[in-house]
């Protein structure tokens, strides 16, 4: 009986000239929940693919359950009890739950014909393992994300799994669903299952794992039991940088000053009777969970959702925001919730993405756009904000999540807004870039910009904002500021 479920040593792997893994070690004890942490592009996905036999490493040894493998193939890995639950769950949305659960197993047994009874038996066995209550005949596409994940988990358990690898399993889940997932992981652990949990979210890592390995740019940085890890160390190992905590500012006194944005009893589909004031130089948070109306509020303030009641004042004068153009004219800019589908033109060059909102001011005589002025504008912002790229004529796709977000920010800032609304400013952004973005927002507020941060990430709101309004079920449920504005209070208020 080997003590270690998995022991890989000195794994190297390059693609073309890029060294994705530069000698990674990873040891997972039997029955533990091990966390693999690291920022985007650190080699997490590559090492998972090596362990699951998808990639052959250039160098290094792989030992699973005490047995060494020379050329590990995907079927070897499955036979050895390794199951990967991918971020997209690897399911077939068009097939029924039953087929999704049984398909891989029947296929692996190299059967040629479909026996519906056998399919159902396998499926029933699978859902029983985690007491998952689901209609086996439902089409998977009609189910919520959390259920899709449970399908992937119960399917993985079918194959006599000994080590389950979960690749960032919590990305698309609500807080409640995450709790349910963690309960299931705890249950599996009781039964002796080894779990490799891939994540870069601090709180989750501390909550679920027994030990942790941190990777950075293809190298091991640190491995230790979880109780030896602290938040500061974790951040340092992940990024290789030390961060000063953003100082909590005293609540500034805006008494007697005209607010930059004032909203009175605003109602639109999704929220009702929202009132608040936002001054120049202030960072105000709107905290709320999915469905609390926070996103709708941000859309209404940007002219994308028509309010049916209430009043909006900008800089003291009442305005009607019937379109995005109206909002832009008033000096409002929005960083949308999903930069990939709502914000960026991914295949287009970085500079065009930055310049696109400033086209009117860049256009020369006769309304023709000069490429040189686009380039000039973009170059300035790329330098100011610190977008990490060699060349801003490359497509935005080539950037990491954090740098893409900086591009969206640069575009908004290039229009010289008075009010900057950010919906989920650091979703899918790694810690280093998140820190940069927070610093930038603080300094913009310092220069007098009014900033509205809309988010469900309570830690972010607590760290970044001077004051926060809590939204729940489409209404304002409270307000926090000063020392009261912390993770715990916010979390308690939003749930």
């Amino acid at each position: 009986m080997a003590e270690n479920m998995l022991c890989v040593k000195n794994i190297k792997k390059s693609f073309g000239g890029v060294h994705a893994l530069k000698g990674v070690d990873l040891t997972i004890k039997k029955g533990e929940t091990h966390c693999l942490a690291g920022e985007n592009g650190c080699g997490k996905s590559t090492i998972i693919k090596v362990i699951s036999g998808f990639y052959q490493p250039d160098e290094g040894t792989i030992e699973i359950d005490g047995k060494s493998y020379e050329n590990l193939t995907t079927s070897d890995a499955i036979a050895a009890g390794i199951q990967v639950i991918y971020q997209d769950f690897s399911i077939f949305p068009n097939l029924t739950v039953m087929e999704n659960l049984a398909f891989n197993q029947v296929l692996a047994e190299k059967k040629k014909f479909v026996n519906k009874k056998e399919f159902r038996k396998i499926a029933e066995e699978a859902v029983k393992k985690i007491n998952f209550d689901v209609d086996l005949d439902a089409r998977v596409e009609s189910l919520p994300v959390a259920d899709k994940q449970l399908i992937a988990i119960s399917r993985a358990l079918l194959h006599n799994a000994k080590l389950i690898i979960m690749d960032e399993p919590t990305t698309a889940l609500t807080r409640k669903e995450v709790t349910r997932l963690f309960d299931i992981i705890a249950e599996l652990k009781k039964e002796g299952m080894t779990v490799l949990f891939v994540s870069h979210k601090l709180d989750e890592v501390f909550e679920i794992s027994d030990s942790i390995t941190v990777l950075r740019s293809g190298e091991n940085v640190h491995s230790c039991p979880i109780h030896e890890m602290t938040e500061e160390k974790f951040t340092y190992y992940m990024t290789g940088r030390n961060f000063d905590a953003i100082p909590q500012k005293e609540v500034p006194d805006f008494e007697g000053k005209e607010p930059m944005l004032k909203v009175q009893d605003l109602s639109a589909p999704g929220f009702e009777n929202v009132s608040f004031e936002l001054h120049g130089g202030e960072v105000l948070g709107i905290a709320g969970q999915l469905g609390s109306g926070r996103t709708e509020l941000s859309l209404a303030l940007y002219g994308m959702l028509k309010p049916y009641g209430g009043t909006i004042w900008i800089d003291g004068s009442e305005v009607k925001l019937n379109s995005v153009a109206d909002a832009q004219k008033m000096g409002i800019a929005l960083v949308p919730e999903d930069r990939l589908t709502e914000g960026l033109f991914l295949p287009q060059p970085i500079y065009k993405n930055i310049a696109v909102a400033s086209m009117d001011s860049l256009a020369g005589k006769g309304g023709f756009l000069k490429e040189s002025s686009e380039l000039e504008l973009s170059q300035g912002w790329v330098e100011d904000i610190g977008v990490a790229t060699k060349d801003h004529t490359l497509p935005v796709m080539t950037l990491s999540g954090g740098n893409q977000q900086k591009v969206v920010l640069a575009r908004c800032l290039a229009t010289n807004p008075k009010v900057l609304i950010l919906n989920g400013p650091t979703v899918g952004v790694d810690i280093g870039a998140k820190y940069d973005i927070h610093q930038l927002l603080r300094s913009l507020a310092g220069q007098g910009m009014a900033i509205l941060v809309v988010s469900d990430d309570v830690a972010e709101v607590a760290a970044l904002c001077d004051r926060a309004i809590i939204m729940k079920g489409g209404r304002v449920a409270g307000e926090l500021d000063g020392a009261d504005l912390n993770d715990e209070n916010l979390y308690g208020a939003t749930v």
Partner: protein
Amino acid sequence: MNKKVKSMVKQTEFYVLCIIIAFAVIIQIRSGQFLTSNNLMDLVRSMIVPGIYAICALLSFVSTGADVSFPLIAALSAYVSVVLGNKWNLGVVPIFLIAILLGCLIGCINGFFIVKYRFNSLIVTLGTSSICSGILFGTFEAGRTELPEKLYTVSKVNIATVKNSATGLGSALPSTFVIMVALYVIAYLVLNYTMIGRSVYALGGDEVSAQRAGIAVEKVRFGVFVVNGGIAAIAGLCYAMMSYFYMPNEYAGAEMLVIAAVILGGTRMTGGVGTLRGCLLGTFLLTMVSNSLILFGISVYWEKVVIGAIIIVGTAISAIQARNAGNPFAGKKKKEA
């Protein structure tokens, strides 16, 4: 049971059936000629060839790769087999085998470019269509051709004949009907009860997942185009048998109506979803409309307007349904393997 009824009502096929019934009632009331034995028989007769083509369209859409080459594969392989059949005085079975073989070969060309070079299937099949047409009319200078004797004899065999006592009009169900039924039965069994068949659906649902599950994605996709070639060739010969002559000019252009019928029957152009039942219903509906508008005394030109309108409304219904199903993969960015 209640659950079954509910899920049935949600399916596109159900709406198509409703539209068919509504049309039938209207035509019956207006002309009194719909529910006559000869009209119904004529309808079934007219949908044999488009019905077979519909299997090709279904397979290609479900596995995510539009195929528009089937009418010209049909034309070319039918021509070659008819000519060879005349020359060597072949029997029915060898003639069909030659056609199927040639159809599969052209299908291989489609599959090769689509799978190996990952070219867009619409473009590739448009290309092969054009090449087939060029060979047929340019190289072979194909014209109206008599059928080989043995094939002609079989094509004269009817499995049923009816006569409308009121009008004196008669109609017959040709032997090719058996071929269509056989193809549908085989396709049904393969698509629903074999792992290959389910793999076609799985591949259409999510290609990356299919690959990870261990499906030979490239082989399945290649296979679909080869099989499509074979089925198209069979349809080509059926068409010649039903007109008692091989007529090369009659083939081109059939793809649009067939594709419309298949989409109308609930097949998603984005892949993974579609049933043979839907194909039959969609084909029946469009055949019915094009046949029966004459009974109203509506001109042939208006017939096209009506068909166009049905296609738009019908596809809109299935598109809305697909959207409501909340398909998270629709139009999503490509995933890494």
